[in-house]
């Protein structure tokens, strides 16, 4: 589902160059939940953004479902993301003025679907948000927010789910709920790339990779 090969990415600034990705290579097959762990600043988020088609690498190749997203024009790449990927972030990135249900429906802004409303309602129930679906993010607990973000990521049944420290702001119980949902998604045939330094992730991952100074150690 996801194959990244020899990715290179460097950030230049103030006379210094920081290598965020150094020949990073990995692949995530359908049904896999691959956890990439490493210290802060090792390049985990960069890896995720490059894999998502949001940050073009200096070198190397990204293939999602056997297609290079960087070969597409920007709008085509956005459409490709909407059709194939889901995202979960540490900060949830919910739209503050939309209810939980509307946040779950946010991907339809890019890719309308006739059954989106029903599926959103189903996801809200599935993630225990049915009673809170009309509330704004500011009125939800952090766990509810992350579950809302997760439901949003799953609205279009993506093939690949990219999660960046999804448990970083959650308590233990909420973190477990989120990780179990990610594992559930993988078991259902989806591919999950999870970058985290949460040690609990290993319990739910099918594979755990270590990342250090932009390199992925297998």
């Amino acid at each position: 589902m996801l194959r990244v090969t020899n990715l290179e990415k460097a950030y230049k600034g103030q006379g210094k160059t920081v290598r965020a990705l150094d020949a990073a290579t990995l692949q995530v097959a359908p049904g896999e939940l691959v956890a990439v762990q490493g210290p802060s600043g090792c390049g985990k988020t960069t890896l995720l953004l490059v894999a998502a088609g949001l940050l073009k690498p200096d070198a190397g190749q990204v293939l999602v479902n056997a297609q290079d997203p960087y070969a597409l024009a920007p709008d085509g790449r956005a459409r490709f993301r909407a059709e194939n990927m889901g995202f979960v972030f540490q900060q949830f990135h919910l739209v503050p003025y939309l209810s939980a249900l509307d946040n779950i429906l946010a991907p339809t802004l890019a890719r309308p679907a006739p059954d989106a409303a029903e599926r959103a309602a189903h996801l809200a129930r599935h993630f225990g948000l049915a009673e809170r679906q009309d509330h704004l993010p500011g009125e939800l607990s952090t766990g509810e927010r992350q579950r809302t973000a997760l439901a949003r990521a799953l609205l279009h049944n993506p093939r690949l789910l990219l999660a960046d420290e999804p448990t970083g702001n959650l308590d233990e119980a909420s973190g477990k709920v989120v990780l179990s949902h990610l594992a559930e998604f993988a078991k259902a045939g989806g591919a999950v790339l999870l970058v985290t330094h949460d040690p609990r992730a290993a319990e739910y991952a099918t594979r755990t990779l270590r990342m250090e100074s932009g390199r992925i150690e297998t």
Partner: protein
Amino acid sequence: MTVWRLISREIAYRKLNFALAVLAVAVAVGCLVGELALLAAHETRAEQLGENAEAAAQQRVQRLEDDYRVITVKLGYNLLILPRDQDLAELHLLGHTTKTMPEEYAQRLGSANVITVQHLLPTLQQKVEWPEKKTSILLMGTRGETPPAHRDPKKPIREAVPRGEMIVGRVLADSLHLAPGDTVALMGKTLKVREVRQPAGNEDDVTVWINLAEAQELLGQPGRISAILALSCFCAEATPEGIRREVTQILPETQIVELSPQAATRRAARARAAEYGAETVAAEEAARAAARSERHAFAAWVVPLVVVACIVWVGVLALLNVRERRDEIAILRALGTSARRIFSIFLARSFMAGLAGAAVGYAAGLALGQGWVRWESGGAQAAASSPLFDGSLLAAVLVLAPLLSAAAALVPALTAAQQDPAVILQQE
């Protein structure tokens, strides 16, 4: 999720930013509509006042003309009836006539029932040498008035000079040391000075008036006169041409010269009254045009200034909105929303602010204009509200204001669309 739902939710969430954008557009539109409404109201009012003033001025002029007519009506026309062969150039150069006509003409004119003549004075005049005094004089023979047959006799304007007497002009009397009561010889005839005239400042000052019959004898012109003075003539056709036509029908062997300055004065007075009226109306119109021009000039720079300021204001608010929504833009982009869609979201939001602002601004501007008109007219012009409403202006405002508002948000919307989501998402 549709763009409109997203925008409406965002507007409901960030009410202040949107309200300020609506206010900005409303201020610009209100200013424009209010100004145009006021100009239109002023225009209408000025038009009414101008028409009233013009009508009043015309009434005043009409009254003035009537007054002049009444005041000068009794002046009449003074005519000098001369023999047709009298050379007028010679008359003016010499200051006296050189031709004569039958004295009977005076009776004929007096008997005619055509013109209204107050006084008819047949005269015989000639420039002669006063041999006894060795000086040149204008000798005028007069018999007094020939009373018009068809009118009641009036007090004569000039008395006849009795036989054996003379009236002497002031300059002549002074130079010859003549005084009333003196007896002098004139061309061999002894005459008593009856009167010395007051200074006239013309040829009268060197004239000697004697009885017409005696003058005819002295000058060897029996039964002849050289002119008839017809004083204070009034006729149906109260113009010199009309009188001239009537007199020449009665006395075809004559010519008529209008002497009276009063008639010219009357014409001049009436002409001046008409000029005064025209000047008053023109001044009124010029004052209105100047006031209109001042108002238009004021509106010509105030309104664009306010509009530009409001466009900048809308642009700044849109930019603040973009900055506030960086995270949201990043996640929407990550979820696959195209840059074009992001661009349209911000543009549409500004368009809606423009639409709302246009509606509010138009209503406010109209209310301002109506309020002003009502205040200016002391509440008397409540009915003036409907003429201020301009459907085409409303349509123009409802189209242009949203477009301008959207144009003001063009740069912020582009900034939003070009925002790199990776940069935002990396900042976690």
